[in-house]
């Protein structure tokens, strides 16, 4: 009885008005986010001429799968997907491992780890300042990483933001759990493995998601560190296809350049590639998203 009474209170007129406004507002924002994607999808499914004339908005005209079959037949496209997958596995794995391990000692209080603050600052400084593109590029080159997958995996391996996130999460875990384990004779490895990791799964999931999506979407590293087209990760490859080559004047009388003029107007093919490239994130994000909220907002042990 009591619950139904309180439910009636909740659905008062003002409450309903609020919920309605909220729903409309949020639905509006979601639509704004979805429209560009719908536009891309519509373009990718239309014929070239309609797109060149700007007839396509959110609904395909003269429906055709031609651009998809063209993309599917492209060797470079699949090669770049393979590189991206490799990058995600190596880069994601390494980065998460490093994050999880670094956050643990840094989460210890002063009495356990005296120079903690100094070390945290050491990391945080790299978050605030970096060497800039050219010095970083030169370093990577001199380390001999150019054209190897490690140039994409090692430089972003230590994500300080993620470390801080996880560090704070670890800190919320009651010290009593650790003390009890210490009394029972567990060492730091065991405490970390048996207590901290299981209790911080939501946070680790969040960090993993951040890392994976970051690796999937990042393109600039691929552009500057990779000297062979076959080593481009997917986003770099897409970027190189999608960014418009200049349309107006042509420099030399090269026929190839003139032919490019014809290809540039073919936006259906680019749209198909963008859509395929965005597909994995589109598919997985909604399912992993619940960890996001949990991982960032929930602290310590509950329930």
């Amino acid at each position: 009885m009591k619950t139904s009474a309180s439910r009636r209170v909740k659905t008062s007129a003002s409450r309903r008005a609020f919920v309605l406004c909220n729903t409309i507002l949020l639905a509006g924002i979601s639509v704004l986010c979805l429209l560009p994607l719908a536009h891309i999808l519509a373009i990718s499914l239309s014929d070239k001429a309609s797109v060149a004339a700007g007839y396509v908005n959110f609904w395909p005209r003269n429906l055709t799968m031609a651009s998809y079959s063209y993309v599917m037949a492209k060797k470079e496209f699949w090669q770049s997907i393979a590189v991206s997958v490799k990058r995600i596995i190596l880069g994601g794995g390494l980065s998460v491992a490093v994050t999880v391990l670094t956050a643990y000692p840094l989460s210890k209080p002063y009495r356990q780890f005296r120079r903690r603050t100094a070390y945290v600052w050491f990391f945080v400084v790299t978050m605030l300042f970096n060497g800039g593109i050219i010095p970083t590029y030169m370093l990577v080159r001199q380390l001999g990483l150019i054209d190897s997958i490690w140039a994409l995996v090692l430089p972003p391996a230590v994500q300080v933001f993620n470390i801080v996130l996880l560090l704070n999460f670890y800190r919320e875990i009651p010290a009593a759990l650790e003390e009890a384990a210490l009394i029972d004779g567990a060492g730091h490895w065991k405490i970390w493995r048996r207590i901290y990791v299981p209790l911080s799964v939501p946070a680790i999931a969040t960090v993993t998601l951040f890392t994976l999506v970051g690796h999937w979407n990042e393109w600039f590293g691929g552009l500057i560190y990779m000297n062979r087209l076959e080593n481009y990760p997917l986003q770099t490859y897409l970027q190189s296809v999608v960014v418009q080559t200049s349309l107006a004047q042509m420099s030399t009388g090269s026929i190839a350049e003139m032919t490019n003029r014809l290809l540039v107007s073919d936006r259906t093919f680019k749209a198909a590639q963008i859509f395929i490239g965005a597909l994995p994130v589109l598919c997985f994000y909604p399912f992993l998203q619940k960890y996001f909220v949990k991982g960032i907002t929930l602290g310590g042990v509950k329930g």
Partner: protein
Amino acid sequence: MKAKLACIVLASIMILAAGCQSGTGGGSPAVTTGSQPAPVSDSGSADAADAADAAETAADAADADVAAETADGEMGRYDSPLTVVMVNNTNDELSKQYEAIGESAEDNRWTRLYKEKLNIDIEYMWIAKPDAYDEKFNIMMASGALPDIMRVNAVQFKQLLDADQLADLTGVYDSYMDADYKAITDEDPFMLKLSVFGGKLMGLPQAPTFPYSNTHSLWIRSDWLEKLGLNPPSTMDELIDTARKFVQAKPDGADTYGIALSKDSLGNLRGADEAPGFRGLANGYHAYPNTWIQGAGGKLMNGSIAPEIKTVLSVMNGLYQEGVLSKEFAVKDKTTYYQDLVAGKVGIAYDWLGLGLNVNELKTLKPDAELKAYPLPSADDSPARPQTRAVIDYWYVASKNFSHPEAMIKMANLHIATLITSLAAEMSPDGKTPNSEYYGAPPEASSAFEMVNFWFSLTPDQNAQRVYIKDAAEKRDSSAVSKNDMPIYANLVAYDEGDLSQWGWNRTFGGPNGGSENVNVYKNDNRAMVDEYFGLPTDTMAEREATLDQLQIETFTKIVMGESPVDEFDAFASKWLSLGGQAITDEVNEWYAANK
């Protein structure tokens, strides 16, 4: 104690890892010179032995810089292998062609030719697509590791010159360069003037200048003219009248405006970035925006601040008010600019000779549509002179650290001989076609000539000169067509036989009233208004041009849209001078006095 130790050990491991990320300890910016060992890919070609050989020589060349002995002669073969490091720009079209013939950027007919004839192994420091190319090139320049030979544009050329990174080519040019190339440089005085600095030849122009190929034409939907019973306009008044009639009649049914313009048209973007639309219109009133013209006292002045521009802007303001210019032109990017033409929202455009290629889909969409090129109409009795530039787009330069700059000249000679001169007619390795076809434009790989991104053209004003293909195609006689131009010939013939998707080529090089045909009208009258300044960007230009361009585009756009009065132009002219324009004018005149 143990716990503490573990903490420290863990933390120090992480410090190591973090060191990798922050990348501050880069050390001295050592310039790696010469060859950067790059793996020579086998790519599954038949020439496995050759590839192994190449890999070996690459390793040799890395430590022995003096490996190659200079052999004499324009195309003398080196006794021991010489590795030349280059960079490569491979566009999608070329990748497709590689696939078709089973070759690759690293191992193809040209790399084999250089190996066989000159004993030169070509290695790439990196390979990129056109969009990534400039970015990578700039990072490469900034980091100091240059390839031996590279292709540069004017800006890159100046940067490398200023940084003193380039080899002096004067000596090797004099003693090795092909006579035909030298003959062309005698005919086109701009070529060497643009490449000699302080008496030293620093770069090899890729092609002669092309002033007429660079001019703009007036493009009109001729099917609209016929529909409304109008004649092609020959004066500005007639043109404006035609535009008004187009707006009223809406011949394609769409909401129509008169003359195409994009948001960047009024600015000063150059070369490949230039937005068409403004200069052709301005030339009709004898105004020459973004061009250095003769001013008072034999000195050069910038055409953008000349009083004639004011007239043009006030006319355009009127056209804007009555809807002949799109009310939304200030937000139209290039994509929209072309989109409107394809969609039949606009029927008049001032654009380059290849506009048909940009709007090729128009014909597929509307088989009755036709675009024709006409000479620029003039506001008065004297014919309009299309403004243009005699510029070099690309040079080949050698790094200062390259110990064999003559190798670049030899490679150039071999290229020219194989495609254009002495060896062109000889039988190629495939035993069926002559060299000029096999290495130039075989049917399945029409861009073969640019496989290693090292190619020259000796045809002056190439796109204007290509009008000859039109006659050949009409007669169906390809005997006079050069191998490089064969794809164009084939496209023209295909269009004549009903392939509408080749319409853009017909509009560019075919007829009647094709783009190339029209610029030859100018050429026969010697009518082009060539920019008097053709040097590299001056120091102040490099520094201030972006600001001045911004000022120009904002002021002009506001005047055309009626947000500022036309008299605002006078304030703009003096502001332009005070914001660095005066310094640029002085630099340009200094250059002019020396190069007249």
